[in-house]
């Protein structure tokens, strides 16, 4: 039976196949499968719809995607770990380059550009967090935090990790699954009026088996943990390590955690140039000091700069490769493999584009816009724009308890007004009742925010 040659499979051409089989000395392709016993061979056809041509495929997929409503169509106030930011066109241009898109594991010679771009990303993030070592990025913030606390456990030889109770609950799940069974986790209470860590509780839980304390700044709930130096002091007195998670887009205005004593800093690169992609834009980074006891605990690849035999040439290679699972299998540090390299390159492009001024400006605009939104929300009767009495960055808790409506009801009504309301916190943080986490960034205009305010007013007066 003659079959149509598929555009993706050149050697479907029958004459070519015949020639190749002749070289091999086989009668048919199926003969090459003689190593697979008949009882393991699939007898029935796979129940998958027949092939589509390129045009049909495009119609089919676009038809399905048209059932989505995107944040381009509705005004979006959802954040909670994936955030809508301005994305410079150059970021997209670079990460869509066919060379970067389709490269993989090339050597430092044929992929010199990939190595340099990732070394530069490491170097640019290093300036942002004010630390000397940054890894080739891992999957997301959750993984970065998971590895950070495991690194801390190996460095200190201790097994207990204290997590701030305000860490994103979904992120805690990643961290706890990743650390179990080797590590034990305990949560540190927080002040429900300010969000700040309860230092008395911290002190009580800082026993001699504590490897690290982990908190996020700005926190999942948006507030800025202003006790950074105090927490750091307590942690150091206990010979534990301080691990802090950050939203890197805040670091033009908020002090990087290394400046108040963090030993390991981690976070998500998604705000730095990645589209939300229904969560496909996440990428985690880890940063430390350039000390051998830290560097040797990274599972990730770390690209370093080296001279070549020719003067004036930069070369790049893997630093201390023999710590990785690529080199040592189960005896390596955790594991390494495909993670999120292209987002690392993109984050580098973003930081190069914004520069020192841009990073400060974007942080400031986010603070102004979000403060304006909170202020206006507070003027609505029954609504508290910011439930917590602390400065916040980008996200804040909006308290709807006095409105008589649930967050779910309000969000359903906001949807009718083409608004994606904030994330419902009533399941994750019972202490706040009917409250939602709203996210306001530099992409929100005054009109967007005023539309939200007006819409909530209308919903509440009905």
């Amino acid at each position, binding site marked *: 039976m003659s079959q149509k040659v598929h555009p993706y499979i050149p050697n*479907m051409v029958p004459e070519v196949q015949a020639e190749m089989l002749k070289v091999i000395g086989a009668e048919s392709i199926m003969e090459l499968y003689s190593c697979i016993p008949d009882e393991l061979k699939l007898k029935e056809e796979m129940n998958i719809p027949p092939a589509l041509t390129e045009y049909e495929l495009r119609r089919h997929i676009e038809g399905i995607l048209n059932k989505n409503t995107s944040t381009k169509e509705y005004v979006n106030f959802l954040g909670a770990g994936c955030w809508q930011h301005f994305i410079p066109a150059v970021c997209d241009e670079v990460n869509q380059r066919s060379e970067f898109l389709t490269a993989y594991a090339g050597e430092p010679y044929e992929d010199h550009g990939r190595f340099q771009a990732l070394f530069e990303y490491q170097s640019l993030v290093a300036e942002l967090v004010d630390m000397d070592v940054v890894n080739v990025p891992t999957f997301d913030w959750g993984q970065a935090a998971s590895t950070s606390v495991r690194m801390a456990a190996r460095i200190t030889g201790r097994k207990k990790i204290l997590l701030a109770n305000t860490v994103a609950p979904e992120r805690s799940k990643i961290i706890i699954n990743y650390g179990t069974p080797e590590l034990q986790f305990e949560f540190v209470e927080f002040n429900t009026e300010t969000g700040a860590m309860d230092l008395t509780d911290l002190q009580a839980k800082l026993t001699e088996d504590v490897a690290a304390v982990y908190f996020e700044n700005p926190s999942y709930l948006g507030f800025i943990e202003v006790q950074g130096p105090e927490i750091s002091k307590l942690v150091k007195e206990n010979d534990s390590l301080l691990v802090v998670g950050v939203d890197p887009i805040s670091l033009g205005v908020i002090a990087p955690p290394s400046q108040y004593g963090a030993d390991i800093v981690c976070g998500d690169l998604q705000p730095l140039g990645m589209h939300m992609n229904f969560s496909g834009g996440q990428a985690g980074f880890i940063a430390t000091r350039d000390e051998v006891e830290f560097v040797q605990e990274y599972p990730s690849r770390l690209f370093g700069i080296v001279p070549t035999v020719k003067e004036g040439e930069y070369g790049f290679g893997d630093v201390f490769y023999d710590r990785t699972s690529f080199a040592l299998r189960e005896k390596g540090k955790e594991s390494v493999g495909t993670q999120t390299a292209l987002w690392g390159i993109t984050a580098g492009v973003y930081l190069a584009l914004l520069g020192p001024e841009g990073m400060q400006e974007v942080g400031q605009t986010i603070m102004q816009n979000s403060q304006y939104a909170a202020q206006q929300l507070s003027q609505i009767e029954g609504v508290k724009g910011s439930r917590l009495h602390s400065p916040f960055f980008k996200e804040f808790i909006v308290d709807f308890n006095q409105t008589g409506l649930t967050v779910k009801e309000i969000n359903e009504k906001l949807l009718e007004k083409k608004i994606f309301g904030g994330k419902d916190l009533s399941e994750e943080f019972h202490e706040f009742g009917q409250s939602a986490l709203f996210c306001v960034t530099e992409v929100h205009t005054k009109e967007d925010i005023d539309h939200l305010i007006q819409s909530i007013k209308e919903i509440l007066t009905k």
Partner: protein
Amino acid sequence: MQRIKRTSKTRDFHQAKWNEPIVFELHQPGEKGVELPPVNEQIVSAVGDGVSVIPDTMKRNEKPNLPEIGQARILRHYVRLSQETLGSDFNVEIGQGTCTMKYIPKINELLIRDPKMMELHPLQDEGTVQGMLEIFHNLDLCMREISGMDYFSFQPSSGTQALFTMASIVRKYHETRGEGDQRDEIITTIFSHPSQAATAAVKGYKIITLHPDENGFPDIEKLKAAVSERTAGFVVANPEDTGIFNPKIKEFTDIVHEAGGLCFYDQANANGLLGITRAKEAGFDMCFFNLHKTFAAPHMCGGPATGALGVIAELRDYLPAPIVEHQDGKYSLQYDLKHSIGKVRSFHGVAQTVLRSYAWIRALGPDGLKEVAKIAVLNNNYMYHKVLAIRGASAPYVKGHRLEQVRYSWEQMANETGVTTEDVTRRMTDFGLHYWTSHHPYIVPQPFTLEPTESYSKEDLDEYIHALEQISKEAYENPEIVKTAPHNSTIHKMDEQDFLDDPEKWCITWRSYLKKAKTEC
């Protein structure tokens, strides 16, 4: 006009060389890369500068030491770096065995840039992402057909993360049955990816590694000796990285099941198996596929990616939440999974990759998928035959056909000429080709692993083979040219001093380089 002679069997190639500075060296004070959305004046009047609310101890006092560079200069820098990167779009990427480098359809790249995909927030109301959930569900259905498994999760975002997820499920499964402490061993094989052993160790397991018998098959007697009441699970690739398919795989899974362990299948090497044989019939409880390998999503310099994880019905409730369900014409996210391990990655995984792979499957249909497998195997055996004819090359273990890839050896050539597989790596660069040795440890001496996939034509394969032939010839006649390679690459051979392993010398960032490299060499 005379005919221009083009008789060389290897490509007369030279890679782009721009000798680009490091991005910090482009710094020109006052230049600007991009303008940000401005803040509204009325907002400023209402809230002030926004940053005074930050207490002094938590304020950033000095701006980050980032470079200031104009937009065109930044673009040029990165486009030049991209040109110094050998993507699979323009090289015959056969040399990255185990990674299934195949054609990345351009239509899929166009589809993922639809704002109705790119600009979706993962927490949007389910009613507004029905299309996205439909694509997740449709891919799930296709993967069930391909594997025989009952449910898929696309949350794991690489093969390694899928392996880790499977090890997590194994642990939770035995804990739920009260055997969590007792079952503390996971069995794997040496020709499987290092991540199999590494991720199981992260999950607290003791690793038992089976070595092959004299023919390269995992040794069934060694498995029988290894299983016990301590066995939690068995993880293996089949074919392994040698391209050798273990025909006794069902006996292996039976032995492990009898001992009370779970069997999980690393299908990184599935490209020759689509529509031919499945995880279910081989007795596996779980399996995963790399969507960025077999299912044609791009590798993106090393992610983001997806390790599509399939499980039998009994293990559904152990999956990381949420999974997508379809009922009465509506798609929804199911978070309520009784024994769920929790999460391995935030939200739903890498949605673009899910979309790309679904599109790829739909472009091929069931017959096309089977053709992918068959041509991948044809290409590999053609290549196998040709490579074995090259002086100094061999392929240890069983003779006869292999599936989609082969782990070869230059042992003979290295012994006879001193040219190693690492030398070949650098020399292949001179012909515009990528070549990878193999994962450690080098059980096969002087190894290299070739996987020609369905994407390459006979002519492409011949080009790669000619380059290997040429290097072998050089090794025997003029080994220095190989040992001092590359000659036509972006850069020359790196200085062999200990710049990467000595803490005093390594520089992982530019700021660290500026501190450590104080004087000119």
